[in-house]
């Protein structure tokens, strides 16, 4: 999704069928807050105040309560992320198996600190907590896919193959 779809002052779901389906799955409206936010983030790339207001209106709760929820979860982003989110696991097994080296390598390769996006908007480097794949450490999650047990060399090949 390109960030041109986002307008700070207004937001509308493009797929209203999906919104209805989400609502149909829950006994009350406020339960739909999280899936609606996920849907909005998939559509817009990150959570804007317009999204918060829209979700609040749909779920009939106050914007502050939606914000409460958004700020609690680390996977809701408050600013534009790169097309590919490089999420490097930092928890014990990965850390012992060289997660720090991976972060350092990506930092050097693209000149981005953790949390930053490359200037061409392609990659965002993120440090994340346990991805639950400790047996195959170190793990890097690129968008929704796991890439496990990577050496620096394999990582390079992987990153270079991303169009």
């Amino acid at each position, binding site marked *: 999704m390109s960030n041109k779809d986002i307008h700070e002052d207004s937001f509308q779901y493009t797929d209203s069928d999906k919104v209805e389906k989400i609502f149909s799955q829950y006994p009350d409206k406020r339960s739909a807050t999280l899936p609606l936010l996920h849907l909005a983030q998939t559509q817009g790339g990150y959570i804007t*105040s317009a999204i918060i207001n829209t979700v609040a209106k749909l779920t009939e*709760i*106050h*914007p*502050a*309560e939606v*914000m*409460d929820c958004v*700020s*609690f979860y680390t996977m809701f982003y408050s600013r534009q992320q790169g097309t590919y989110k490089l999420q490097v696991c930092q928890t014990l097994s990965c850390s012992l198996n060289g997660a720090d080296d991976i972060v350092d390598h990506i930092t050097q390769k693209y000149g981005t600190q953790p949390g930053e996006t490359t200037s061409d908007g392609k990659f965002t480097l993120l440090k994340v907590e346990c991805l639950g794949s400790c047996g195959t450490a170190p793990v890097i999650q690129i968008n929704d896919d796991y890439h496990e047990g990577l050496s620096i060399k394999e990582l390079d090949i992987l990153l270079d193959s991303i169009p």
Partner: protein
Amino acid sequence: MPLLKIDSLEIEVEKGTTVLQAAMVNGIEIPYYCYHPALEIVGSCRMCLVEVEGMPKLQVSCNTFVGEAPPERKIEGKYDMVVNTHNDLVIQERKNVLEFLLLNHPLDCPVCDQAGECYLQDYSFKFGNAHSRFDEDKRVRPNEYLGSQIVINHNRCILCSRCIRFTREISGTSELFVEARGNKSKIAALEDKPLDNLLAGNVADICPVGALLSTDYIHKNRIWNLKKQPSVCQDCSVGCNVDVFYQKDKILRLTPRENHDVNGYFMCDIGRYGFHRFEDLDRITTPMARSNGSFSAVSWDEAIRKTADKLGDEGAKIAGIVSPFHTNETNFMLGQIINGPTGTLPQMNDEEIIYQSGFRISNDRSPNRRGMSDVCPALLEDLVSEIDNQDVRMIYVLDDGIDREIDDVWKKILAKMDFVVVQTYAMTTLAQSANIILPGPAPYEREGTITNDGGRVQWLRPSLPMKGESRADWEILMMVMKALDKDAQDFTDIGQVMKDMGEKFPAYDGLSFFRLGPHGMSLNGRANG
């Protein structure tokens, strides 16, 4: 009913009572922060942990309900629940919980406004450890404004979420939320929706620590220097119960006082900050008489004599203006003096606001309209035309005070009068048209009873001393009464005025400050005079 044993105390409690409530009403102290009787239970502070026999871990007593156990599971054959609040395990746990709550809490009690009424301070002293084992640096954050009147000190906050629940459940405005989580979490408001509702001041009251502060009181004084007087708010006809904190002749702050028949636990910001209107007023502190267009101070004797000379004229027609800003006793006494047409100035209306919890701010911003009409039953709807019809040339006015604006109709009437007596505390528009000004007490100096719009008579207690030579309103009216009629009844204090009022108006019969007590008394069901 379930039989509960707390420590060595055996008590029967309603099914569904929480352990904390049962302990509180029976005089057993369980410390707590996040619990508030008006708010939803969350059990987040963990301070009220107690041991419940048969349960594997300590339980939060605020969220543990007492129920009935089946006969075969009763403890010692009779108890439905056995709770220990003071054994070694609980005592150690309290120390641990406090140590966690204090991890990032600064040791700035000497500059903190909450000191002296701080639960963190009290419980640390009573239940806590003297030392912390935390070696790291404390998390330090700058203060922030949540709204125009409320500032938050994040370092002191223990995230009990009382303020958040208040905005969600009581005011229904929901401005506050917890931002982020874990070590990073803090109380925040959305940028485009700050905490600016008319109940915002309450969050500073319900904050158990010094995190939420009212900008109106911050760094003004220390709480132990102040005297606290229970009183009643005089800024609308709901009559919220308040505590007035004052030092010498200055009010520092007002806080709500619990009264479930009136305001619950809260009050609005109109009343909370309303006392500032009466500060630095140009007060009238001596009786004044007008001669040749300017006022000069006169003695009480002279002022009363002049008043009585005029009012006592054979066949003189005198109109009276009573006031919903004055006490029942004052209005009653003026009603007794005036035999001509009596009325009141037009009501000044404002917006009525009702919050989600039912908390109400009345559209009538005078405190005693109900009481005034009760004790002055002959009030005329249309005093203006009656004054014209009867060609009244003299008028005795109880001034509403500095908020009163006079319309042109009344200006004309006052200009026409031969003789105007105004009982007031400041040089208001009304006072300027007077021939004689009799100085009385300002709000928060007054004593007497007021009746709210729900028919509850409440004891208005004075917090501040009267200024200069001014005297109590009932005393002034008694002096006028005595000057007019030497055989008039003598009152030595306001209690006697109340008694006399009760004899004439059965609804107010038998009232006394003793019977009113701190929470007042409802008139509903009493015969109305």
